């Protein structure tokens, strides 16, 4: 198993890829996942985070097998 990290919209373009696969370290949070996956960039202030397709905060724990997504403010409708 591993953790799937996904990026959407302008954030995907900024990161330069749509997806990463990370090994779980047993003590991850959503914010920690960003720091490990995109070490060259600070997590943007207004980023939205979803864990397994539900909104979550940066300090929410992440477990092996989870899908963590990062994306900018939504602009649908």
């Amino acid at each position, binding site marked *: 198993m591993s953790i799937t990290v*996904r990026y*959407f*919209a*302008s954030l995907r373009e900024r990161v330069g890829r749509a997806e990463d696969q990370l090994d779980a370290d047993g003590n991850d949070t959503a914010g920690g996942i960003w720091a490990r996956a995109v070490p060259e960039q600070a997590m943007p202030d207004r980023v*939205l985070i*979803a864990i397994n*397709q539900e*909104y979550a905060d940066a300090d929410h724990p992440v477990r092996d097998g989870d899908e963590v*997504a990062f*994306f*900018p*403010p*939504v*602009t*649908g*409708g």
Partner: protein
Amino acid sequence: MSVSLHPEPFDPWARLAAHQAQLPAGSFGATAVFVGTMRDFNEGDDVRGMTLEHYPGMTEKHLEGIVAEARSRWPLDDCLIAHRVGPIEPGDPIVLTAVWSAHRKAAFEACRYLMEELKHRAPFWKRETLKDGQVRWVEKNTEG
């Protein structure tokens, strides 16, 4: 209850007619509807086209959650949300929300609630192509 994403143009009035035909006639008294349509201008610029990105899986799940929340807050007979994804042209409908209820207060309030929740939380992102060919991500949603 129906939530659907449309990669192709859809006709909101035909969609409403088809959906309502499935409901028992005489059971509902009030239908409130909102349709968001792509304009050919935004923030002062002429816009030629748009692409709507979404998060497959989460988007549908989130819209279904909004509908469930509306049904827990108001006495509703039925709800409908339809949303375009992919490439869109000016004049195309982007979003349709509709609510059927016994009374107009519940219908109006729930329909507006669906739209506000969708606008603020549903994972969709707009990328515009301007008349001069420049492409930009829409950063701020249209005001309520």
